[in-house]
């Protein structure tokens, strides 16, 4: 007969502790002046400062993805995709956070400005 055992509880506690620790010990205290948004699409990679409010339109695989930058945060305002998962993600503003629109092949990632830009094609001003 299968019943919950001591090893179950041990493994569950261990896994849960690692997950919770990784969520809570990732606090990012830098201001939005130190951060940039990197937008990855199938054809290019562009970097934007979060200081400046902007409306960005990216051409994805299925259609357009509209991204707004306001007050140090950004969100996907509209996207031409079936599920609108990226729109439902809401606003992100911390380094390490990202929003992805898989059908369109578009991803937005917030990084600290001090991180070296990996394969950025352009820096938008």
């Amino acid at each position, binding site marked *: 007969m299968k*019943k919950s055992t001591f*090893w179950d509880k041990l493994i*569950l506690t261990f*896994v849960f502790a690692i*997950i919770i620790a*990784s969520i809570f010990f990732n606090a990012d205290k830098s201001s939005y002046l130190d951060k940039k948004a990197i937008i990855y699409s199938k054809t290019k990679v562009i970097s934007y400062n979060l200081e400046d409010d902007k409306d960005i339109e990216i051409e994805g695989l299925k259609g357009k993805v509209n991204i707004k930058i306001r007050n140090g945060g950004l969100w996907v305002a509209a996207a031409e995709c079936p599920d609108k998962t990226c729109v*439902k993600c809401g606003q992100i503003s911390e380094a390490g956070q*990202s929003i992805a629109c898989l059908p369109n092949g578009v*991803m937005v*990632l917030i990084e600290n400005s001090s991180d070296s830009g990996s394969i950025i094609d352009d820096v938008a001003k």
Partner: protein
Amino acid sequence: MLQNKDKLKKYILAVSLTSILYISESLLPKPFPWMRIGLSNIVFMILLNEKKFFLRDIFAVLLFRNLIVSIIMGSFMSQFFIISLFSSGAAIIIMFIADRIFKEKLSFIGISVLGSCMNMFAQLTIGSLLVYNNLLLLGMLRYFLLYAFFSGLLTGWFANELSNRLLRLNNVVEK
């Protein structure tokens, strides 16, 4: 000959059950497309305990399940077909290893949580590589793992209950 017929029947039953569970789950409303509970993995956990089923047999069930489901749902040979195949394969390997190392010391709850976490990790890794050619989606891994932990708990509990009921049924039939 009788053993092969018996094994074939179990193959057909396993593939049918896991396909039906997978498709039924896809019809449930969910806030995000990747938010599946993983009920079809109950079948793979039960197969881990089947004496005549080796790892290659469980992989064969997985392959047939993915083929049938992808043809029905219209995602055959798409990125999602490949992501699902490899992530479920990775989960089965971890569950198999955990089952063989711990044997009777670990119930399906622990095995299921390990499998679902591995499934989520593999989905994000392969999805990130296929769609974006980088590993940046792994930045969201910790939030996805929290969901995988609870869905693994639920699936493991179901598998435990089903396994116990099947054992009681087998004992009644043999008497």
